[in-house]
């Protein structure tokens, strides 16, 4: 099994969810993050002094997936969150050793 993690633009959350739902993904976990990278930030002014804010808001989306589906899901996420401009983010996957559904105790693919 794989855990797919995507760090993407916050405004893309809805598109990703729609894409994944359409693909058949039934659950995912979202959290807030801030990213620093090639995308440059913005400037806030306070008392005539400038603050250059270069940690920009991102969304982290995590999806557990079977090995077979993992690659498709990667593609779905990329397709639905790409804008072509710096700051689009990263998606990565790692191998999962074990996964469990808390409600039932089901393990493995059944847990997803």
């Amino acid at each position, binding site marked *: 099994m794989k855990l797919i993690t995507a760090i993407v633009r916050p405004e893309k959350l809805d598109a990703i969810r729609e894409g994944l739902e359409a693909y058949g993904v039934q659950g995912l976990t979202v959290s807030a993050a801030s990213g620093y*990278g*090639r995308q440059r930030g*913005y400037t*806030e002014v306070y008392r005539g002094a400038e603050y250059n804010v270069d940690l920009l808001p991102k969304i982290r989306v995590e999806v557990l997936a079977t090995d077979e589906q993992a690659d498709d899901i990667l593609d779905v996420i990329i397709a639905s969150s790409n804008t072509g401009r710096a700051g689009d983010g990263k998606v990565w996957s790692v191998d999962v050793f074990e996964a469990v559904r808390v409600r039932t105790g089901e393990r493995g693919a059944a847990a997803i």
Partner: protein
Amino acid sequence: MELTAGHVWLMVAAALVLFMTPGLAFFYGGMTRAKAALNMMMMSFISIGMVGVVWVLWGASMSSGQGFLEIVGNPFATFGLEGIDTPDGLIKVGYASTFAIITVALISGAIADRAKFGAWSVFVPVWVTLVYCPLAFMVWGGGLFGPEGELGKALGPAIDFAGGTVVHINAGVAALVLVLIIGNRRGFGKDPNHRPHNIPFVMLGAAILWFGWFGFNAGAATTAEQAGLIWVNTLAAPAAAMLGWLVTERIRDGHPTSLGAASGVVAGLVAITPACANVSPVGALGLGVVAGVASALAVGLKFRWGFDDSLDVVGVHLVSGIIGTVALGFIAVPADGVGGGLFYGGGLTQLWAQLAVAAVAIVYSAVLTAVIALAIHKTMGFRVSQEQEVVGVDLSLHAETAYEFGVGGHGGSFQPLHELITGKPLAEGAEAPAGAPAAAPAGAAVDTASNGQKTAAGKESVEA
């Protein structure tokens, strides 16, 4: 002349009404998204600043005194407030200024999250001068609708004790016109993030508005009896309207909401404004219920009809303003046994007068607002760029964010002031690959086209 009770009351009332505009800033500011809260509040604050100056210079002069064609006063008669020499002359000017301030600020709720601050800063003084002052003159300053005015004589003088037409109908119509010209927010009717970001602020705003409204309605009272009646009516109508609104929500949606309670209070206050001195307390209760229910239903229409009156200026101020103004045709209590509304045996006279003043206010405000707003929109543009809207107007127009609560959400480097004053730009990012295209930054938050280039984008990106 020594201070009289009347002077003291007028000073207090004026301070109360001035306090209403920051109250409005919170009422509106809490209803926007967090990323547009400051801009929303700034639209109210700049109204105080702009109109405060305009009023001292020519606004006061234009809204009373000797007029042109019963339509507007002479701006130079008491320009700069020179030549006002009755003992309470300046107190009255101060009191009147606060009405002009809040009227224009009311409009801003309709165009939340997307108006250029520069354009708004032009709109405010022009609109006050060309729309508010004449209307105030016509209704209160001895113009068209006064007892000596042409229409006043023809139809009998309309009742608008504290500003149903001049303030609420006027602002509500202007709001509608602005929405139609500026257009809807992105995602209007679809994006759940358009929910209010801070409802306690909305309630704070409603509370300050209510508090100040006692000055608004009762400030011009002359007798103890009248003052007492106005005070009680200014309690009764919004109390009843709050209940009316909440019951409507409970039946329609299943839940009475806090936003509804706050909005209901305002709807009731709007409705009682023109009528506060001329209806009985029980009449005020009834008027309040009607206004609460009607506005609760009206605010939903924007979704049906597709115009993004973002914070419901039309649904609350126009609708309840009309209700209060027209209701006087039915429930005005006869003064000294003379006149009165239809239900008090006064016949249709008062009703015609009320309908006439409402209609004139609507037409006048609509036409002039459209001209002003279009002129601004066609020249400097009234609306921010799409990117600025997505980033949020707080950051893109004011280079600020309303809140900084957390760890981790903010970082970056700090550029002390002297670099700015010396004009030395922020250091270019050393890590940017050479040959990066020098893309022109289009908004405060800048994505370079393909790879990064560090730019102090905020500075260039502001709209004028």
